[in-house]
């Protein structure tokens, strides 16, 4: 029992509810939102220290023990993700202070933002698959409102698509859970893992596994990403940055959790299927990123490439591949938030997202330009920045399993990513300076701070990999050995 485990979920919900009560007091809302993200980070840091010394931490809500009650499980994998989540969301909040606008602020922007974080953290921490569904819904409901908040024309159009596709996938999720419950009689992850191992993962079980894969693919943007470019480019920058950084990652987390803990017996079927989807996703995403001349479109297609790449490591199902996936997942959360904030700042300054109408920004905004350059290099995995190590490990993992095509596509698409992002840099920052300071649509005042924090973070993560190496190793060891998780939740000699 460790009550620290629940804090990342209840801190944002308490703060959010207080904000709903004091709707008019925006100063209080800003202060509380920053305070609660920092509080989550501190709680998670403590949690990480405890996990590294004492193993996986669990909490049975109300004292009802697993597999009967609701259990929360924090292993190193989820704790790291929560820490990154709270840092990224802090940066997006700081960006929102100066860009989101008073109207959205007074229509519950901050509470919704915190409910989104509640859902994300809950999904990372929950120990049973039904609560995963519940926390998915918490996250999605908050995101429905965030995506349509402000009711501009594009936002409403995209939010209808977004809501429809997510309702369908939630429905499928529920159906898949029902099938799984009918066959195994339990919903607790650890207990599921035991039961599936007992009955073996035969045809029907694998079918259910693939149904889960479809559901999570819809959420993660793995192959079924047709809804993603539109809906991620519709809302204002701070919101689309947090979407790009977190929402698809929760789907990826679910795939990684379910396909390492429960359905890991037939990797030649399930994991190969993930691999094929990942390869197609990377290719299509990269083609989209190269083809478009619109900053927001290029960036959203880069989100898709990232998803494919992370899951390529999962598909390899080796220690190297998983290590790479985790490194790249951490990197991707930071860099996607960063690149979206940068792109948003450019659009904010020039008033257009059409690349051909922008040029020569570097003369007026050298800081912004160079940070964009660093982010671009980091995005495509140039050493010594944070994307590099993940790329190495994922490629190594895929080659080791013999999926040379997968690793190859991963490397080719990273070149395409580099081209697509350099296209923004060269067209946007080089060339003749059209704008003068008076003619700009907005200022960078206050926007560069969060961007700076994230840039420093991506450099630090690249140079200081040694520092987090130990923690990532613990996380991957936990993922590759489901028995650790099962023991932590059900005890060393689980009653059947």
């Amino acid at each position, binding site marked *: 029992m460790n009550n620290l485990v*629940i804090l990342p979920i209840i801190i944002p919900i308490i703060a959010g*509810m207080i904000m709903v*009560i004091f709707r008019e007091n925006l100063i209080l809302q800003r202060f509380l939102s920053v305070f609660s993200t920092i509080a989550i980070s501190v709680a998670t840091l403590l949690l990480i220290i405890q996990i590294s010394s004492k193993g996986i931490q669990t*909490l049975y*809500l109300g004292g009802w023990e697993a597999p009967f009650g609701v259990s929360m499980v924090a292993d190193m994998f989820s704790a790291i993700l929560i820490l990154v989540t709270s840092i990224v969301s802090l940066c997006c909040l700081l960006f929102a202070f100066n860009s989101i606008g008073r109207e959205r602020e007074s229509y519950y922007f901050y509470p919704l933002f915190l409910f989104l974080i509640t859902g994300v953290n809950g999904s990372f921490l929950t120990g049973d698959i039904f609560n995963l569904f519940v926390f998915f819904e918490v996250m999605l409901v908050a995101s429905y409102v965030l995506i349509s908040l402000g009711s501009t024309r594009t936002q409403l159009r995209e939010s209808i698509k977004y809501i429809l596709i997510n309702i369908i996938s939630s429905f499928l999720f529920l159906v898949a859970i029902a099938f799984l419950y009918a066959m195994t009689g339990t919903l607790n992850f650890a207990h599921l893992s035991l039961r599936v191992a007992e009955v073996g993962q035969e045809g029907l079980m694998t079918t259910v596994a693939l149904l889960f894969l479809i559901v999570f693919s819809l959420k993660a943007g793995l192959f079924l990403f047709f809804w993603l470019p539109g809906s991620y480019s519709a809302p204002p920058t701070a919101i689309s940055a947090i979407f790009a950084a977190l929402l698809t990652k929760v789907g990826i987390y679910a795939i990684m959790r379910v396909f390492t803990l429960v359905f890991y017996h037939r990797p030649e079927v399930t994991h190969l299927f993930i691999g094929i989807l990942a390869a197609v996703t990377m290719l299509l995403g990269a083609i989209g990123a190269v083809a478009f001349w619109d900053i927001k479109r290029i960036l959203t297609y880069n989100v898709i490439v990232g998803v494919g790449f992370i899951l390529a490591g999962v598909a390899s199902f080796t220690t190297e591949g998983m290590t790479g996936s985790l490194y790249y997942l951490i990197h991707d959360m930071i860099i996607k938030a960063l690149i979206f904030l940068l792109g948003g700042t450019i659009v904010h300054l020039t008033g257009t997202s059409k690349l051909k109408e922008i040029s020569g920004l570097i003369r007026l905004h050298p800081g912004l330009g160079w940070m964009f350059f660093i982010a671009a290099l980091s995005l495509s995995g140039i050493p010594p920045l944070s994307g590099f190590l993940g790329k190495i490990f994922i490629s190594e993992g895929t080659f080791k399993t013999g999926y040379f095509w997968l690793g190859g596509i991963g490397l080719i698409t990273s070149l395409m990513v580099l081209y697509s992002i350099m296209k923004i840099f060269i067209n946007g920052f080089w060339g003749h300076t059209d704008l003068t300071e008076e003619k700009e649509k907005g200022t960078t005042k206050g926007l560069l701070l969060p961007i700076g924090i994230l840039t420093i973070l991506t450099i630090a993560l690249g140079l200081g990999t040694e520092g987090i190496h130990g923690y990532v190793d613990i996380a991957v060891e936990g993922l590759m050995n489901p028995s650790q998780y099962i023991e932590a939740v059900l005890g060393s000699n689980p009653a059947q």
Partner: protein
Amino acid sequence: MKEPNDVIIRSVTKVAVVIIFTFAINLFFSGHHYPGGGFIGGLAFASAIILLFLTFDIETVRKNIPVDFKVLAAVGVLIAVLTGVGAILFDAPFLTQTFGYFNLPIFRKTELATAVIFDIGVGLAVIGTSITIIMSIGDDR
């Protein structure tokens, strides 16, 4: 335009609302040991308020019940979560509930449980949310 003839619905509502409120409170308290509880108690309570909305118009009802239902929902969730947090202060797992028997002046030996406080939170959240939904659908603005 002629005045709508709503004598019947007005008279029935005035009686029915009291009955529904009583039933809702009964549902709420019986939920501790029998079927019922904060959720359906709250729903029944909300249905009575909706009946009031239908009979008299929204403006009149809001004047008589001057509560912001969004705030009510938030307060409800806060109460529910904070009873969970209370367990943390006693170093028990989050959401742990406890109960005891007390000799109260009129009720004699009574069971008092923290779960009831949690349930009050759930009830308020349900009332607040459902009325907010109905009002935002029903409002012309």
